[in-house]
């Protein structure tokens, strides 16, 4: 491989791994958004708060980062259940709940800077040995390197997204969640107990924040403003991946970050974050177009327009 191919491969690899981290963060959001109808900005704050707790346990109490999940996972679960209870209790429509979660988003930033100060908090020094050094891939890819925190994001993303997709598809409760989303009254008539199920889903979604938070704390230094940096990518990934589809969000996040990194390598990095929104804008611009196409297709369906479609394929 020559140098620039290596660079491109490396930047795409970095992007993909960072995308995995965003996929972990997006997981809980897309599930809540798609299946409970709540665009929960606060979920992103919970990730940061979990990361801060991880930081404190690792640096103050000397815990292994993985062990901190014993504390953060139950805590996040409770937060998830409580927030869902609040939304149900208030009988909030999607607009109101969006505003509510934005309010909580602000509170969380205040709480984080109150408790952990606005300084950068890095636990790089307190990490177990070997969690920091770059690992070179085996030949013939030996010019590419990855870091253990990035690999951790990859593993966690695959495990969590896999578990979530599998249980949504193949477990009884998962199918109940899907049914509930399509038509709650009918689902309830068939014996789905919507309220407890929603609480459980919200709790589990928030639980994923604890894992994502751990991955964040291992990978990067923390500061209270981080959720603002994440929110764009995470939300766009959820939208592009299809709401309620963990795998879709993960793939979208990976693709977005790969695009963004490749852009920064070739073009002006100061426009990099615009790439994500550029994709979103393209997607939006495609809406009127797809509307026209859809309308035409539905109008002309009786006359069988299949050949045209096939010729495209």
């Amino acid at each position, binding site marked *: 491989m020559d140098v620039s191919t290596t*660079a491109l491969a490396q930047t795409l690899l970095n992007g993909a791994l960072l995308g995995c981290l965003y996929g972990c963060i997006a997981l809980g959001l897309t599930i809540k958004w798609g299946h409970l109808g709540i665009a929960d900005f606060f979920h992103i704050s919970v990730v940061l708060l979990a990361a801060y707790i991880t930081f404190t346990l690792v640096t103050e109490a000397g815990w292994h980062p993985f062990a901190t999940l014993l504390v953060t996972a139950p805590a996040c679960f409770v937060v998830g259940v409580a927030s869902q209870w609040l939304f149900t209790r208030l009988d909030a429509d999607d607009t109101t709940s969006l505003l509510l979660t934005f309010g909580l988003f602000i509170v969380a930033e205040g709480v984080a800077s109150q408790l952990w100060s606005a300084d950068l908090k890095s636990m790089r020094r307190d990490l177990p040995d070997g969690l920091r050094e770059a690992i070179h891939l085996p030949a013939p890819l030996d010019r590419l390197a990855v870091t253990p925190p990035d690999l951790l994001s990859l593993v966690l993303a695959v495990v969590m997204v896999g578990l979530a997709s599998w249980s949504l598809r193949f477990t009884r409760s998962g199918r109940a969640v899907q049914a509930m989303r399509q038509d709650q009254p009918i689902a309830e008539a068939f014996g789905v107990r919507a309220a407890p199920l929603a609480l459980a889903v919200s709790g589990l979604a928030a639980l994923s924040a604890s894992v994502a938070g751990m991955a964040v704390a291992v990978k990067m230094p923390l500061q209270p*403003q981080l959720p603002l940096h994440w929110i764009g990518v995470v939300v766009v990934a959820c939208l592009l991946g299809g709401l309620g589809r963990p795998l879709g969000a993960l793939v979208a996040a990976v693709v977005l970050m790969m695009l963004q990194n490749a852009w920064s390598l070739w073009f002006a*990095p*100061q426009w990099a974050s615009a790439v994500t929104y550029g994709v979103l804008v393209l997607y939006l611009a495609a809406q009127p177009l797809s509307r026209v196409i859809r309308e035409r297709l539905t109008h002309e369906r009786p006359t069988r327009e299949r050949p045209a479609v096939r010729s495209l394929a």
Partner: protein
Amino acid sequence: MTPIPTTRRALLRHRAQLSAGAALLLVTSACGSSDSEGSTTAVPDAKIVAPVAGMTCNEGTKPTGDPIVVGGSLSLTGPLSETAKVHEGVAELVTKWVNDCGGIDGRPLKWDVLDDQSTPAQVASNYERLIGEHVDLVMGPYGGANTLAAAGPVTQAGYAFPTHTNGAPQELIGENHFPAWQFDGTGDKEHMFDAGATTLWDALKSSGNPPKSVFYATAKFPTTLSLAAAAKSRFEKEGVKTTGDVEYEFGTTDFSSIALRISQADPDLVYLGGLGADTTYLYDAFDSIGYTPRSVFAALPSPASLAGLDDEVNGLLTLSIFETDSALGDTDIARYFGKQYDEVAKDDDLFPLIETQAAASFAAWQILLTGVVNAGVDNKAIIAWLNSNSVDTIAGSLKFDGYNNYGGDINRVTQIQDGKRVLVWPKDVAGGTIDYKP
């Protein structure tokens, strides 16, 4: 959730999380080593002296009478709060210091601060409020945009306007502006950053191995853009090759592509026109691709960000107007300030190190206090006095006679050597020599 350390050991551990550099200083001082003499933590028994020349310190005298109220707005919440809290800490420190010295002419000093939530609109309103409440004097806010927002009401009301961190010096404020962080005001406004670039070049040249190629990566932020542009034009004039020049969005945390570009160019010097935590994130990106830069200059990194990087940043160069390990730190005032700042940092959970921010903050107070000591609590008289005299501050002697009341450039070059920050250039204030072999 941040614990309050009660024992010495707990304190040590607490600091260890804050910084390797500070921990190193504490350990060396605890072991009685003498090589960190003059550093903030190694001189616990610095004697109280008056904070400015021309003022006498009557320790133990309780000030009486009407307080002299100094009003100011600081970004105590929001994105600017990390550094703004340094200025709040110094303001509290100076107030206590003056009052421990019996006040000014027997009158106590009072600091009246309002939070502006990091929004310039609120800054302007806060100064109107303070002026409406008839504060005697004002102190500038943190940062360029805030400073310029405050300048409107402050100037109109005829107050002297000392500023610690005006990062946009070329925008004209007027005769009442007394900047502590000085850029070169002897020429015209287009060239205010050139002298600082020359200082950097001279520092590099003094090592005997100046860089032959430079890669510039600059945050989209007024001060860093100005600094980088001046440095680039100076370096190119010296025949240094530019192997890359990119700008990135202010607040970027993912530097992996920029790090890759740098590793491709493999320059002698990486010029990082970054602020705050940028250095940390860039080094993280270097880590993730397994690249070690030959040498790095970082423009305005937060001290915590550098210290958090441990030995990895050994040899890194940065800009600072003050270091404890320098001729500037070797005065009674600087020593007492260092001791007090250490305590304030402990109480307020600030990073226990004095560099541009804390030093500029103190220098701005010194400017104001010197004005008061010599001209009384009268803004018109203070403005007139300061415009025709120079003021001795912790960052050196400052004059207010050039463009926008700037005197000479006071930006200096600091290098991280064995985990410690050493001021290496210019020679007359240096605490060590540059060690530079890209």
